């Protein structure tokens, strides 16, 4: 077999890994959409925000230091201590829960019974707001995020697969981070499924997805449910933020992973958790393979930007209900 074939496989594996990342973000979307019918464009920014906070806490950065300096001419930056990753993560998580609470209190509460499109717009507004806010709080410079997840190529795998190909194949290069990400993602997904299957709240969440009245009958107010959902979404965002952050640094571009997740949603459907995962994988693999086989050689590369969308688009044209949605019978 030619080396290229194995490189192909390597690309495939990396695609899977990337796909997992996509699924992670997509998951956040799905959770919120299921529970509140809101298409939360801010999901990506939430990841960025989470990552920023995490770094900030770890490195003991003073929030809003830039603003303070700019206004009062002071020159403060750090508290001067470093916080262990674990506590920082807990702190950030609290941050995200607080955030969820605020969002419900100041935004969602006032937008009940609005058309979906309006809610969608609101989340775009929210995204803008948080992006600016995050930068004001922590500054917009690129930060390195390290919570102790091993990085760099996985030597073991590389050495032990080198034999497969010919002389010019050196084994699969796969980043440890991606492997860990996959593991975390898997755990997260399982946890979520267990949660929604076996806990009262979880069942309530599922009920809300079907209809809001039902949720109330379960005895949990819509508003609490929203807070919970957004907190979970925040948690998912945090995980995603950590992974992407440690991979490519924490900066504005991180928020763009949201855009990566959208085609996944189209593929998997806005309401299906498995859809989000499978969709993510398909997109991940698809765009990597397309770039490897067609994009790079013939189209001058950088096709990842749009391939996912085109794929989803074409797919939808032929199957409008998405991967897991059942056929829609239109009634009048």
């Amino acid at each position: 077999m030619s080396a290229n074939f194995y490189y192909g496989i390597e690309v495939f594996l990396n695609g899977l890994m990337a796909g997992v990342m996509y699924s992670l973000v997509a998951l956040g979307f799905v959770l919120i959409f299921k529970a509140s019918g809101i298409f939360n464009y801010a999901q990506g920014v939430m990841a960025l925000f989470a990552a920023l906070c995490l770094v900030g806490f770890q490195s003991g950065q003073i929030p809003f230091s830039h603003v303070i300096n700019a206004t009062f001419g002071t020159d403060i930056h750090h508290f001067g201590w470093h916080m262990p990753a674990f506590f920082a993560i807990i702190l950030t998580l609290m941050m995200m829960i607080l955030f969820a609470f605020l969002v419900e209190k100041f935004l969602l509460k006032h937008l009940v019974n609005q058309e979906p499109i309006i809610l969608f717009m609101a989340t775009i507004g929210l995204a803008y707001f948080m992006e600016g806010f995050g930068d004001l709080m922590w500054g917009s410079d690129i930060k390195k995020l390290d919570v102790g997840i091993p990085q760099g190529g996985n030597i073991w795998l590389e050495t032990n697969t080198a034999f497969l190909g010919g002389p010019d194949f050196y084994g699969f290069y796969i980043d440890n981070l991606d492997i860990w990400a996959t593991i975390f993602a898997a755990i997260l997904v399982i946890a979520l499924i267990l949660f929604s299957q076996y806990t009262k709240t979880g069942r309530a969440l599922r009920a809300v997805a079907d209809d809001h009245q039902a949720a109330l009958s379960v005895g949990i107010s819509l508003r609490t449910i929203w807070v919970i959902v957004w907190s979970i979404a925040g948690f998912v965002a945090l995980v995603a933020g950590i992974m992407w952050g440690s991979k490519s640094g924490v900066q504005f571009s991180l928020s763009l992973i949201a855009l990566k997740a959208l085609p996944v949603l189209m593929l998997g459907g806005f309401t299906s958790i498995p859809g989000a995962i499978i969709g993510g994988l398909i997109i991940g693999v698809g765009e990597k393979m397309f770039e490897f086989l067609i994009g790079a050689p013939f189209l001058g590369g950088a096709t990842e930007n749009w391939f996912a969308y085109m794929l989803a688009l074409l797919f939808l044209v032929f199957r409008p209900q998405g991967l897991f949605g059942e056929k829609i019978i239109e009634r009048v």
Partner: protein
Amino acid sequence: MTQTQTYQTPDGRTIGPAVMEMKNITLRFGGVVAIKDISFDIREGEIRAIIGPNGAGKSSMLNVMNGFYHPQDGDVMFHGKKRGPMKPHQIAKQGIARTFQNIALFKGMSTLDNIMTGRLTHMKSGLASQMMWWGSAQREETANREVVEKIIDFLEIQTIRKTPVGRLPYGLQKRVELGRALAAEPKLLLLDEPMAGMNVEEKEDMSRFILDVNDEFGTTIALIEHDMGVVMDIADRVVVMDYGKKIGDGTPAEVRQDQAVIDAYLGVAHDE
């Protein structure tokens, strides 16, 4: 049932040959059979009612008639010709208009505009001339406005001409919807439970309008109702459906005698 010679009704209307014939229609959703081998015809100038308990498949039948559902078996004959696979909007252009059980008005528009949409099948002017609001476009607009105003006058809804339909009470919305259907000057008018959820007074009004429409414009009307009451007074002939099957067909008088019908109605009421 499908004799074709024209005859006079007692009240002096002329009933012509069949406008639409349903031939052995069968409709399934996946495994569920909504309509099972039903045939009947609708004759020119008559008021034809399709009645039956909830879930008898009436609405599905209406959706077959105006091409929104495509039956797995059976033919729909329109003006004696077999109807091929067509899109609803093409069928509308053939001269079939309808109203909806749960009102399907365009919430964002005024009464006037809603009824004007009923004229769309009659408006041909091109994009360019519309953009300029010149010549044909403006003439067309005015001409059709005149037609619509006649209908507004006919339905006695002048006072709500420019009110957004969202703000109207239920009964009036039903009337506006009838207006929208009338505006198309249909050869066949389908009414889906025109009196559903109305109080007695509104029902009386609506029946009056239905009769007037049939009388003034000679429009052929097929309507669905699930309670026999009003329908029996205004319909010339009635089809009775139950569980997707036809269990009776004939003049109100005949149908009233029909044992199967009596059972379906007086028997255990089943709703899905």
